[in-house]
């Protein structure tokens, strides 16, 4: 016993080191997949407030730029007002039909913190579950895709942006469907796989969302094709795209909720139980 005590006394620093190292490694690996959820639950209030203050200051310094952006958006929206349309003929009006059933609702939010230089980047929004934000909702800025909500606290939420190594979403280029991933590195570029070789994809083609699932409406801009590799022997293109969202400047975003999600899910579930199959 005395020997053990003597041993502990002699190596207590190393033992303490081992203990703390084990503890921190345990924290890292036990929370790896959803580590951001822990962040939200434990610290969103304090850390969220600090980031909120910082963002207020940073925003003040960029008011001019934000102003330009809003003016542009105003102009675009004003162009869609019914008064701007000359109705030559009642049957061929170009008017925006507002009598349809609303499917997507957009909630504005502000980005109060963003990382862009990691492998797994995240944005923090100043809206949370109390303001109606839920997990798996899509997030866009202007017309272009930003990411997907991964976790929420009462007043804040965390978004996994396109520039996160686990981000996946189906995309469409010229009518062909592919899969968007982010290989790391530059926060301005991403990659599209699974587009067959016979598709004639050219640099400059638009990459948009498909509207499958409940995250994004169809036709939201993701980016533009930058480079198509012609040499690989695979039967699918590997396409490098330039993202239309500049994550260094993203500030105001809109969170999309799909109001028909439940109805569609119920329908699919019913069909599945008829077929006796499981939909992933």
């Amino acid at each position: 016993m005395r020997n053990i005590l003597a041993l502990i006394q002699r190596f207590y620093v190393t033992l303490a080191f081992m203990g703390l190292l084990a503890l921190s490694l345990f924290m890292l690996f036990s929370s790896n997949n959803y580590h951001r959820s822990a962040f939200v639950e434990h610290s969103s209030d304090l850390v969220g407030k600090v980031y909120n203050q910082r963002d207020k200051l940073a925003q003040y310094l960029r008011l001019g730029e934000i102003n330009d952006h809003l003016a542009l958006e105003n102009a675009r929206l004003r162009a869609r007002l019914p008064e701007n349309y000359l109705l030559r003929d009642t049957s061929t009006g170009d008017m925006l039909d507002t009598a349809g059933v609303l499917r997507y609702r957009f909630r504005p939010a502000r980005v109060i913190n963003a990382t862009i230089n990691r492998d797994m980047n995240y944005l923090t929004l100043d809206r949370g579950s109390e303001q109606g934000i839920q997990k798996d909702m899509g997030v866009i800025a202007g017309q272009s895709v930003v990411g997907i909500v991964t976790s929420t606290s009462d007043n804040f939420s965390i978004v996994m942006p396109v520039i996160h190594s686990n981000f996946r979403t189906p995309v469409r280029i010229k009518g062909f469907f592919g899969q968007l991933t982010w290989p790391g590195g530059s926060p301005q570029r991403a990659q599209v796989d699974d587009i067959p070789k016979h598709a004639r994809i050219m640099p400059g083609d638009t990459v948009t969302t498909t509207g499958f699932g409940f995250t994004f409406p169809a036709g939201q801009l993701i980016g533009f094709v930058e480079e198509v590799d012609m040499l690989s022997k695979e039967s699918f293109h590997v396409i490098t795209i330039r993202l239309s969202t500049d994550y260094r400047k993203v500030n105001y975003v809109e969170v999309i909720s799909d109001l028909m999600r439940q109805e569609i899910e119920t329908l699919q579930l019913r069909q599945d139980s008829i077929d006796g199959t499981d939909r992933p």
Partner: protein
Amino acid sequence: MALIVLNNLLRILFLILLQALVVSKILLLDGLILPWIYIFAILMLPFETPRWLVLVIAFGTGLVMDYFTGPMGLHTTACVVLGYMQPLIQRLLAPREGYEINERPTIQKMGLPWYLTYGTILTLIHHVVLFFLEVLRLHDFFYTLIHVLLSVMATMVLMVLGQYLIYNSKPADL
């Protein structure tokens, strides 16, 4: 004594906020250069700080840093390794007559060559653990290595410049 403790606590807090709110927002070469200057707080602990205390302070600093940037445990791990190594490196680099009582490792006291050795070794240890744990992949080993080396340089430049800015009372005679 209480003043020294308060002084060090404030420095740690200030550096964490500086890191989280300013330095981490700087994007150089698409994020290839990423300085982590908050470890300056651990490098600056006085020479006679007990080893267990350095460990505990490093652990706490890493934990708070993780709350700001996540994932939980990443900075904590790197800081614990740093806190374990810091007294060892100090012992390794000790001058023949030992350190003076109540002294802190600064350029002004120890000279630029000593500080560059001390700082670079410890920053390198911390950054290697941090960046390789974050990536946890070996297939872009060289990318991560360049990432580490450039970031170590950036951290060192900031730390040295910071010291000349803050403690500019008297330049050390080299």
